[in-house]
C-alpha cells in the first residue's frame, strides 16, 4: 500500500493562551512512501517525527493537509478504519492478558463479515507468532518476557489483522545495544517477508541507515531530505543532515573559498572548481582524510583509537567547529613515535561545503 502525505501540517495550540505562540510540530510535509518499503523517519527529539507517525495512524488529526493510502483519502478516517498496525514505543501490551490473548485481541474485535471462526483466529495468531518467533511463549504474561520478546509480541499484535500499513514508534529504544542490533535485523526480515509498507520513527541515525529502504530526515517539523540511506550520507543537502548522519560524525571546519581553492585555517586544502569566493562551513567525513606529508590540512594529534579493521586518529585544528577532528584511516598507516602533527590530503567527494548563512550545500565540480 502506497502512502502519500500531502502538505501535512500539525499545529499544537499554545498551552498558555495569554502568552500565545503555537507550536508547529510538522510543517508542510509532502512525501510518497512507495508500496512495500521500509521507511525511517529520522530526526532529533522534538522534530515532529512521532507526530507524523500518529497522524498517519489517525490518533492525531492533522491541522491541514491530506493522507492517502493508495488512492483512498484517509485523512478523515478514525484509526480503527484505516487498517493500520501500530507498535507503541513502550509496546502497550495488555499486562493482564497472555501473549496469545494479546495477539488474538485485535481479531476478536472484528465484527460482522470480517469476524472469523475461532480456529481461524488461533491459526492466524500462531502463524504471526511464528513469523516473529514467539510461538513458544504464547501462554506467558508480558511481565514474564524480556524487552525483545515484548517487542515481538507488540509487532505480532500489530500484524495479526494484516494491516495495510505498519507503524513503529521508536521500536528499538527500549532495548539494550545487543538486542537492538538483533531486533532491527528481525524487523527488516519481518517486513521483507510480509511486504507490508512499514514506517518507523527513530532518533538513531545508525538504526535508520541500517534497515531502511528510504529515510526521511526531519528537523523542527520540516523535512530536510529524503532518499536512500547511502545517497543521503554521500550527498547531504545541508549542514544539519550532514551532521546528523554518520558515526563517527562528520568534522566541521570554518573555511574560505578564494580563487576556486578551499582554505582551512589559512592553508589551501582542496580545489573547488566553480565556487565563487566566500566564507563557508566545510564538512569532511572521517573517511575523507588521506594522511599525506604534503597535505594542506595540518592537525595536532591528540590520540589514536585502534578499532581493529581501521584506525581513528583524533586531532585538533584551529578552525574546527566540532570538539575534535576524527579521521578514519587504513590500519596499515602508523603514526611515527612522538609525532605531534599529522597532515592530510582530502578526498573531494567526502568534502561538503555549506553556505555560512543558510547552511545549505554549495556544490563544486569534482
Amino acid at each position: 500500500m502506497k502512502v502519500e502525505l500531502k502538505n501535512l501540517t500539525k499545529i499544537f495550540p499554545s498551552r498558555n493562551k495569554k502568552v500565545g505562540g503555537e507550536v508547529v510540530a510538522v510543517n508542510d510535509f509532502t512525501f510518497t512512501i512507495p508500496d512495500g518499503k521500509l521507511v525511517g523517519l529520522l530526526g532529533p527529539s522534538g522534530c515532529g517525527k512521532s507526530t507524523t507517525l500518529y497522524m498517519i495512524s489517525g490518533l492525531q488529526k492533522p491541522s491541514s493537509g491530506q493522507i492517502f493510502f493508495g488512492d483512498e483519502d484517509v485523512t478523515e478516517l478514525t484509526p480503527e478504519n484505516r487498517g493500520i498496525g501500530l507498535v507503541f514505543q513502550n509496546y502497550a501490551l495488555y499486562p493482564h492478558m497472555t501473549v496469545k490473548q494479546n495477539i488474538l485481541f485485535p481479531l476478536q474485535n472484528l465484527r460482522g463479515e470480517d469476524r472469523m471462526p475461532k480456529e481461524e483466529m488461533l491459526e492466524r495468531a500462531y502463524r504471526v507468532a511464528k513469523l516473529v518467533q514467539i510461538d513458544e511463549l504464547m501462554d506467558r504474561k508480558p511481565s514474564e518476557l524480556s524487552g525483545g520478546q515484548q517487542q515481538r509480541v507488540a509487532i505480532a499484535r500489530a500484524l495479526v489483522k494484516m494491516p495495510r500499513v505498519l507503524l513503529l514508534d521508536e521500536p528499538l529504544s527500549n532495548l539494550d545495544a545487543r538486542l537492538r542490533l538483533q531486533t532491527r535485523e528481525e524487523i527488516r526480515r519481518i517486513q521483507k517477508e510480509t511486504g507490508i509498507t512499514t514506517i518507523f520513527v527513530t532518533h538513531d541515525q545508525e538504526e535508520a541507515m541500517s534497515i531502511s529502504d528510504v529515510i526521511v530526515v526531519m528537523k523542527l517539523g520540516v523535512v530536510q531530505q529524503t532518499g536512500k540511506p547511502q545517497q543521503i550520507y554521500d550527498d547531504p543537502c545541508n549542514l544539519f543532515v550532514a551532521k546528523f548522519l554518520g558515526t563517527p560524525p562528520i568534522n566541521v571546519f570554518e573555511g574560505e573559498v578564494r580563487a576556486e581553492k578551499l582554505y582551512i585555517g589559512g592553508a589551501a586544502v582542496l580545489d573547488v572548481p566553480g565556487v565563487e569566493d566566500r566564507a563557508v562551513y566545510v564538512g569532511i567525513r572521517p573517511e575523507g582524510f588521506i594522511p599525506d606529508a604534503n597535505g594542506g590540512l595540518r592537525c595536532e594529534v591528540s590520540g589514536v583509537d585502534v578499532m581493529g579493521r581501521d584506525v581513528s586518529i583524533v586531532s585538533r585544528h584551529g578552525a574546527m567547529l566540532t570538539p575534535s577532528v576524527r579521521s578514519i584511516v587504513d590500519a596499515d598507516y602508523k603514526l611515527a613515535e612522538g609525532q605531534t602533527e599529522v597532515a592530510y590530503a582530502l578526498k573531494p567527494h567526502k568534502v561538503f561545503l555549506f553556505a555560512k548563512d543558510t547552511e545549505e550545500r554549495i556544490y563544486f565540480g569534482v
Partner: protein
Amino acid sequence: MGEKIKSFFAGLWQNIRTFFKKRVWQGFCVNVLYKKFDRYKAWIYLLPAIVLLMIFTVWPIFNTVRMSLLEGYTSMKAVRGVEFELGIGNFTRVLKYKGFINCLKNTVLLTVLTVPISTFLALLIAVCLNSIKWFSRALQTIFFLPYVTNSIAIGMVFAAMFNMILGGGVRPDFVGVVNIVIEAFGGDYINWMNAGSEYWANIVVMTVYIVWNALPFKILILLGGLQSVNKQYYEAAKVDATPRWRVFTRITIPLLSPMLAYVIITGFIGGFKEYSSIVGVFGESMGPAGNHYALDTMVGFIYRAIGNQEGTASAAALILFAIILVVTMINLYVSKKKTHY
C-alpha cells in the same frame, strides 16, 4: 582515730578515682552499654508504639477472648470478686438469643445489598468523572462531601427526607421529599420509617443511606486507579477497533481490579460493622416507633451488651470477627484468581 578515718576515706576516694579513670571502665561503657544499646536500638525506637499497641489493641483483644470464655462474666460481678468458671456458655447464649438472629439477618442483608450497589455506582461515577473534562474538579468535590460529613447529621437529613407524618406532630402537613417525588410521578405515599412502616421500606431507606455514605471513598479509590491506567492501552485498543464495551470489560476492569478488590473487601468489612448509620436514621431504638430493634445489627447487639453482660458481648464480638474473617478470606481467594496486579 580521726586521722585513720580520714586516710581511709582518702584512700577510698583515690581508689574510686583510679577505677573510673581505668580503661576497664571505659571498656565497660563502650562494649557493654553501647553495643547492647546497638542491639536493642530498634526495639527502643519501637517502644512507644509497642506500649500503646499493647495497651489499646493487644490487651483488649486478649481480654475479649478471656471474658468470652468465662461463664456469665459481667464487670459488676468481677468487681465484687466473683470467681467465674471456664466454658463456652457465652457463645451458646448469644447463638440462642432470638434478637441475635435478627441482628445477623439485618447485618448480612444490608451488607449484601449495599456493597454491590455502591461498588457498581462508584465505578460508574468514577468512569464518568474520569472521562469528562469540565467541572470534574467541582463534581469530585461534591461527590466527596458525604465523606467529610458527620454520619449522624446525614442520618438526620435522611430521616427528614423519608419522613411521613400526616395529621400529627408540629407540622401535620409535612411529608418527606421522597414521598413528594413519588407523588409527582403519580404514586402513593409510602410509609418509609414512621410507626407502622414495613420492614422492606426500612431496609430500602438504610440501603440508600449506606450506599450514599459509602460512595465517596470508593469513587476516590477507583478514580485514582482509573487515572493511573496508561493511556496507551486505550490508544492501542482504539487502533485495534475495540468496541467501547469491550474496552471497558477487557481493559479497564482488569486494570482496575486491584482497586476494585480493595474497595469490595473493605466494603464487606465495613458492612458487617454497620451500626452508626442506623442510629443516625432511626435513633437508638434502631427501628421505627413501635417496632424497636427491627433493624438491630451485630455491633448494636454488642454495644448494648457492654455494661451488663460483658461475657456475652465478647462472645458476640468474636463471632462477628469470625464471620468477617471467613468472608474476607473468601474475598481474598476470589480476588486472587480474578485480580491482575
